[in-house]
């Protein structure tokens, strides 16, 4: 574990969000070291089991604290959060789980693969090599149940969102937008570029552990063919292939 210099620590800025939520903001940029601190702060407060805190939502660069003002007010919570932040040690090697996620690239699963390749003047194989060769950090679970926002997309693949969003992309869709990547957990409309699809279910309300990912986890992708996709899909459906199979 690496404890960084005090001088390098960002300040916590509190932002009001009504009478039951409070935002503890570290920055307003997408940055792995900021996100590590946000995730570590959430984990520290979680471990403390602070009375009055109902939920802690870490995002790219801030922590949304859901609290019960019948139990604890904002003033008290700000002190608790500042103290936890002051005592924070951040493991820069990444303390979360590591995942290896199989993906079928292109075809019906990744209708934007060709366009992304053309846009960057490279082949689709090069797009696949770049996308699956990188290691990603889950910055945030947000927008929808278990929906993972990933940082770490190689700059050569940074691609603007599509001008017209698609009305729906299936669960498991692997897409990129701007400098980010994502793993869709439920069918949703999206303006991002669809590269492929994984049979792995990031969210399944009927599973004993409904949520696969957490902010702070690390993800890498493995290209697979359609037969392997189908084999995995059937195994996951039947329960013979569990989440552990995708631990790196």
């Amino acid at each position, binding site marked *: 574990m690496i404890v960084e210099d005090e001088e390098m620590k960002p300040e916590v800025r509190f932002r*009001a969000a009504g009478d039951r939520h409070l935002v503890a903001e570290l920055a307003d940029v997408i940055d792995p070291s900021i996100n590590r601190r946000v995730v570590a702060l959430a984990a520290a407060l979680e471990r403390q089991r602070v009375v009055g805190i109902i939920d802690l939502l870490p*995002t790219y660069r801030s922590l949304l604290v859901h609290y019960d003002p019948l139990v604890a007010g904002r003033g008290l919570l700000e002190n608790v959060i500042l103290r936890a932040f002051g005592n924070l040690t951040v493991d820069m090697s990444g303390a979360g789980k590591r995942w290896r996620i199989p993906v079928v690239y292109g075809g019906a699963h990744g209708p934007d693969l060709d366009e992304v390749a053309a846009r960057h003047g490279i082949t689709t194989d090069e797009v696949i090599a770049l996308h699956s060769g990188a290691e990603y950090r889950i910055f945030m679970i947000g927008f929808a149940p278990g929906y993972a926002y990933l940082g770490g997309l190689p700059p050569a693949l940074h691609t603007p969102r599509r001008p017209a969003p698609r009305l729906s992309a299936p669960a498991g869709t692997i897409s990129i937008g701007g400098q980010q990547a994502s793993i869709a957990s439920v069918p949703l409309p999206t303006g991002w570029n669809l590269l492929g699809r994984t049979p792995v279910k990031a969210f399944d309300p009927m599973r004993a552990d409904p949520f696969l990912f957490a902010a702070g986890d690390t993800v890498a992708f493995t290209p697979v063919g359609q037969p392997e996709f189908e084999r995995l899909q059937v195994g996951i459906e039947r329960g013979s292939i569990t989440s552990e199979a995708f631990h790196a």
Partner: protein
Amino acid sequence: MSELLVLRPGPMVTLQDLGRVGLMHQGIPESGAMDPEALMLANLLAGNDPGEACLEFAMFAGVFRFTAAARLAVAGGTFRASCNGVPFPVGRSIDVPEGAEVEIGPADDATWGYLAISAGFAVEPVLGSRSTHVRFALGPIPRVLTAGDRLPLRLGTLQEGPRRRATQGRQPPQARAIRVVLGPQDDRFTDEAISTFLAGTYWLTAKFDRMACRLDGPRLAHRDGADIVSDGIAYGSIQVPGDGLPLVLLADRQTTGGYPKIATIIGADLYRLVQRRPGAPIRFVAITTEEAEAAWRRHVAARNTRLAAVRDLAPPSPASAAGMMIGP
């Protein structure tokens, strides 16, 4: 098994309870009743625990048939309700016979209503709640009800004991301006936008659902554009996208988003927004977080007093009660 048959449902009828709390970090919003006090009242009138699942409806519930006698109650507003064509008053429980056709029409004073049935629905919670989230297909009944649906009821016989009535109402939604706390991104708006937001009149539009409610009125100008790095979205958050028109994010909202949020409606005043009818004027007034927390504490205390003021409608007469106690 006794069932509730959906004959002709309103446009937005879902099963709701008090929601699934504490899962925002997994991307799951609270869901649950848009007007929790009305849901709790309907349940208490029907003889249920206050957090039992009810049918929630927007505008009107429609027509239903009960395959067995049941005790039910409607709350939220003065919805026009009838059983087999005979009107019955809302805000009190009513016993309906086997085969009863119950119709719940619109109210002039509310948008969201609740139909509680004694002992509730025989469905299991999903992720700790029986609430429906339509977009994410969550809940034991993960969609809007449609004609032909059959919902299993827990109890086929009438609830024991006297029927009940509410004796204390709350302030009408339009009685005062809606209180907000500025932030979290009020600094992303011009000074003029902040004063416009607090001095101007906005209108509820017909574009509303359980996720959000769009307002019409003076447009609000951003400082440095309408994009922020995504952060968490509180219940009642007022988000302003690029078009400058506010959007209030509600029970089924997305948990994170990238538009600046000018203010948050306080918990005590959420019902004042959601229960207004489309087209109603809305004014906002800013208070501090500390004042908002105090308002919530007062609101919960007053709400509990109102809910505790549910009274028996037809208590057993003293004579019969005395008669029961005379020994041989």
